[in-house]
């Protein structure tokens, strides 16, 4: 509140919150490994379901990889604020003299490094497994890096809105899947264009624009949603 004179700078507070969640993630490697494992398992299902024809798989690879990345982000975002809600960290975060949006962003950033960014870096391996032509591999990583910023922020909003609701898991998917559609379209199209030698740069630019817009707007919405969730 306005009366408080913070004894820590905003940057230090952001860094502190980032460190808190980064360390918590490092100490529980299963939480980091699970989405990657999920990605791996689901990618395996597609050749089994669609048949092993390399041509067909390679033409579908951009879509498959992006949809699975979206599902993986959906799976982890439900947990984003869950433990903070249960252990009372969210209450303390509300009472902090700093803007909630900024502190929540620190937590989302740590989460993004451990899930979205990591997944983007590993995705080319799965791309190779599905026969994605090598021209698409770099763009796949770049598009996932930018796109997962949006996916993580939208997932964080969904988590913030549903964290106080028992059995909020299915509800979370309903809330965030429609919001994720533009990210999916821009991301798959960028990879697809890179494979056919088209203009993938403009699609990446669109994704970058979405990421910036999400970074500007969504933390405020996440903060507002967290306040509601703590106050029920």
């Amino acid at each position, binding site marked *: 509140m306005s*009366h408080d004179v913070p004894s820590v700078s905003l940057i230090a507070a952001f860094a502190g919150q980032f460190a808190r969640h980064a360390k918590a993630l490092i100490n529980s490697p299963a939480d980091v490994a699970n989405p990657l494992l999920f990605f791996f398992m689901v990618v395996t299902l597609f050749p089994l379901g669609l048949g092993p024809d390399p041509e067909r798989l390679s033409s579908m690879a951009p879509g498959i990889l992006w949809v699975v990345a979206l599902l993986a982000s959906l799976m982890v975002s439900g947990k984003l604020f869950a433990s903070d809600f249960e252990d009372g*960290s969210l209450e303390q975060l509300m*009472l902090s003299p700093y803007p909630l949006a900024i502190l929540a962003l620190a937590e989302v950033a740590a989460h993004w490094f451990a899930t979205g960014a990591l997944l983007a870096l590993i995705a080319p391996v799965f791309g190779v497994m599905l026969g994605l032509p090598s021209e698409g591999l770099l763009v796949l990583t770049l598009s996932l890096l930018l796109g997962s910023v949006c996916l993580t922020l939208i997932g964080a909003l969904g988590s913030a809105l549903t964290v106080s609701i028992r059995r909020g898991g299915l509800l979370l998917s309903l809330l965030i899947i429609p919001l994720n559609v533009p990210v999916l379209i821009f991301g798959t199209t960028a990879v697809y264009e890179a494979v056919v030698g088209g203009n993938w740069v403009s699609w990446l630019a669109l994704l970058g624009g979405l990421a910036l817009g999400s970074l500007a707007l969504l933390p405020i919405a996440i903060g507002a949603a967290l306040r509601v969730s703590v*106050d029920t």
Partner: protein
Amino acid sequence: MPLLTAHDVGIERGDRRLLTGVSLSINSGELWQLVGANGVGKTSLLRALSGLARLGVSGEVQRHGSLLYLGHASALKLSLTASENLRYHPACDVEACAEQIAAALAEVSLSGLEDRPVGTLSAGQKRRVALARLMLSPASLWLLDEPFTALDAAGCEWLERRMREHIAANGAAVFTSHQPSRFGALQRDLDLKHHVA
């Protein structure tokens, strides 16, 4: 000087009205205990005073000064160590160096356990980690929800001493407890049974 004033505060939960007409002014050097049976709304009132609860809260709460709130949940990450939990506390109101944190943990008799993950500590020890914030925070007003829970006799004695120090240093505190008065003439009681809606 009042650190917190509440005027005609009423609390509703869902469709049910819990409390009405709570007015109080908490000055520095004062110690208040919220008294009342289970479910009467002690925690709800404390949350309303802290500003955490706004929905369903009528009336006015004004705060002049920094606040430390300790709820039922102690805001500890189980996979972090005791000192990490204090260093990266989500309230972000303390910038403590390693020595200060070690001293605070020693004060709550947790020396030697600083670098153990909090998940491996007992319930009483976890509570002590949360209470170590009372040594670090510069806040003048403390709102403590059942601070004596899970503490052993020595822990209760320490907490009582720490609260007396804080009051003596011109701080103020509001706490809830089922146990009868610990602080004798020093404390004022706010009995919520007079405010039940």
